[in-house]
């Protein structure tokens, strides 16, 4: 052992001795000889045949897609188009699934429970709580994901994503973050957990942490429905009928853009305080455009992405549904636990321009943002004692027309301020538990997981408070 140690050290000593004689250019000359050999070989084996094609597609496309003037507008347009197709296309399958899972299977399950003389609390807990929450998540989440993920994967397969990173690089750099954060941001529009995992493309841990912490400002699939519904109900109704659609779509896009702004601002703040450092440079190869393989993309994005994300959401929705049902049905002094909590949160909620129902809904909906709206509706009905809506205490439901939504909200004391603040709070609050767990797995650090969870919630509450104060002064 000792002798082998000696001979090993002798090798190192020899190397050290000679290193000084060889001088500093050794590394460079080695690299030069690699490049020379590579160029020699390539020159021998590659020949260009035929005349040059008259029109170079890749060049022309890149001029448009990465130009200083047209790059960003085209990007916004493309993303709007993807979201529009997702939103518009998801409606029909969503209501079909809802009809099947909520209107057909749910009553059938209830009847089955009655037929085998199941106690009311067991059938309520299982079918009104656990089953309904899962069914809601499936019918609301599955169609948009099944449309969004394939569209997004097609863009990815085509080679567009590196161009997005290229376009946004200088903005992220100014914020002290990594240009590739643009890629994780876009992934976050599908699912924040996926965005957090995608942050692995960033080498520097400092910039990766920034990307992970701020990914939450990408509105995820679970939050789009909330944004769209509230914008349609409260903001769209401010405009004359012809313009209502445009105004509400504009409001949603504005919230999404505000999210991008917050992502830059938070990255800037973090890179100057907790995560100090310079933005590292990186080289990003713009790959050639390739015709996407449509069938393969459809297959992999539906099977591998959509179903995996959906499965996770369903797993979280089940216990949440159970909690909602329990809160609404356990009574203390003849008042349900849910109402006690709502009354407790109400003063603070109203103070910051929200209300107790929304705050409780966000606590219950930590597992999945998708269940915020049904929870809000259910709790509003419960606390406003609105007759004629819903199917009983603790039953999540979906209303069929917008008019009835509005009635429920008005009965719950909602104003335009509540709506605006709900949209903002939906953008800026803690990530869902799946994402939090993913952050923990990716960083392996409880501290940074806590920062990712609490930073946005503090920001969200502060933001709502600010808006409420200004609103009350101005309006």
């Amino acid at each position: 052992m000792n002798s082998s140690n000696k001979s090993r050290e002798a090798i190192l000593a020899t190397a050290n001795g000679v290193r000084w004689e060889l001088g500093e250019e050794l590394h460079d000359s080695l690299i030069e000889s690699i490049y020379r050999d590579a160029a020699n070989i390539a020159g021998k084996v590659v020949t260009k045949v035929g005349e040059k094609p008259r029109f170079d597609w890749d060049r022309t496309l890149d001029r448009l897609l990465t130009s200083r003037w047209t790059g960003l507008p085209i990007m916004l347009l493309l993303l709007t188009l993807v979201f529009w197709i997702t939103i518009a296309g998801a409606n029909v399958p969503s209501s079909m699934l809802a009809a099947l899972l909520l209107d057909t299977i749910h009553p059938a399950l209830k009847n089955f429970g009655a037929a085998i003389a199941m106690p009311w609390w067991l059938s309520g807990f299982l079918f009104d709580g656990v089953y309904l929450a899962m069914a809601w998540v499936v019918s609301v989440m599955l169609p948009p994901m099944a449309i969004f993920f394939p569209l997004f994967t097609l863009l990815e397969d085509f080679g567009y994503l590196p161009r997005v990173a290229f376009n946004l690089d200088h903005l992220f750099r100014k914020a002290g973050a990594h240009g590739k954060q643009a890629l994780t941001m876009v992934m976050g529009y599908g699912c924040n957990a996926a965005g957090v995992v995608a942050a692995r493309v960033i080498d520097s841990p400092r910039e990766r942490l920034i990307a992970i912490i701020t990914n939450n400002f990408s509105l995820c699939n679970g939050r789009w429905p909330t944004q769209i519904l509230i914008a349609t109900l409260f903001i769209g109704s401010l405009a004359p009928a012809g313009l209502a659609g445009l105004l509400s779509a504009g409001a949603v896009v504005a919230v999404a853009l505000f999210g991008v702004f917050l992502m830059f601002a938070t990255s800037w703040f973090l890179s100057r305080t907790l995560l100090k450092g310079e933005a590292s440079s990186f080289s990003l190869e713009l790959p050639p455009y390739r015709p996407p393989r449509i069938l393969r993309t459809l297959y992999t994005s539906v099977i591998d992405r959509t179903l995996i994300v959906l499965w996770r959401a369903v797993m979280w929705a089940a216990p949440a549904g159970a909690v909602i049902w329990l809160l609404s049905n356990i009574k203390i002094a003849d008042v349900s636990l849910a109402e006690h909590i709502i009354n407790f949160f109400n003063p603070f909620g109203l103070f910051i321009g929200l209300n107790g129902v929304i705050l409780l809904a966000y606590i219950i909906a930590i597992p999945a943002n998708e269940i915020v709206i049904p929870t809000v509706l259910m709790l509003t009905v419960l606390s406003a004692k609105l007759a004629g809506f819903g199917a009983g205490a603790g039953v999540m439901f979906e209303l069929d027309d917008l008019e009835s939504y509005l009635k429920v909200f008005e009965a719950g004391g909602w104003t335009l301020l509540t709506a605006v603040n709900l949209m903002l709070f939906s953008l800026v609050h803690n990530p869902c538990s799946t994402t939090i767990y993913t952050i923990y797995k990716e960083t392996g650090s409880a501290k940074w997981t806590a920062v990712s969870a609490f930073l946005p919630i503090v920001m969200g509450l502060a933001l709502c408070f600010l808006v409420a104060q200004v609103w009350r002064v101005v309006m």
Partner: protein
Amino acid sequence: MSNKTQITSSCATCPAHHVANLKKLGVNMDSWDYVVALAGNPNTGKSTVFNALTGLRQHTGNWPGKTVTRAEGGFSYNGKRYKLVDLPGTYSLLSTSVDEEVARNFILFGRPDVTVIVVDATRLERNLNLVLQVLEITDRAVVCLNLMDEARRHRLQIDDRLLSKELGVPVVPTSARQGEGIPDLLRAISDVATGVYICRPHRIESGSKKLKQAINQLVAKIEAEYPGLTNARWVALRLLEGDPQIIDAVRSGELGSLNETTEPTNGELMIENWKMEKRKSKIED
């Protein structure tokens, strides 16, 4: 009728027929006969080749740096079981990024039986830089000349036989997205793994007389200490450059041991790196 029989039988004798003997094993790997590493520049289709061989559906996408974890899968071919490891894409094995370190360490310490270097046929010159560096470390490699469909689109003609002669390892033209050339790639991998094909890899001409002398002197000592080491010349060059990781490997004897390095999980790795980065920036302050 007789004509038809003839065709079937000639297919059966054709070496490409062996693709029928390919069994995609996915992740079901309990034991294997050979380890195959997949290296290459970013965005050359490594993951697509990986999927074609293992039947797995590792996510593929047209952007560099997409493979963020070391993916492993398996296949069995001609009765032998192969473990396939998809390494992160790198432009070189020289500098110090995490990706390059993972790729280099695997080829160096993991000692794959075959290293498949996937190259982009439309950007051959730049891709060859990595090929030449890999060939310095290992002498059992196969070059997978991928994206041939695009090379045709760009009207590039590549003499793969001459390239194979120049590099001293098998070169297989493929279009993995379409599944073209995969049978030939399998045969080449198996030939190199089983020793049917003996590689005589291209080695880079090393400059001055003084350098050659220094290398020879070191190689002799290294080979005496680590008999059977196939890349003593490469180790000598790294030592001359003062590569701290290789110095450590020589000192600890890790260079000689066949143990595969155990890798920390992503979370641990990240926080370790984060601490290192912070320490570094403190020192710089």
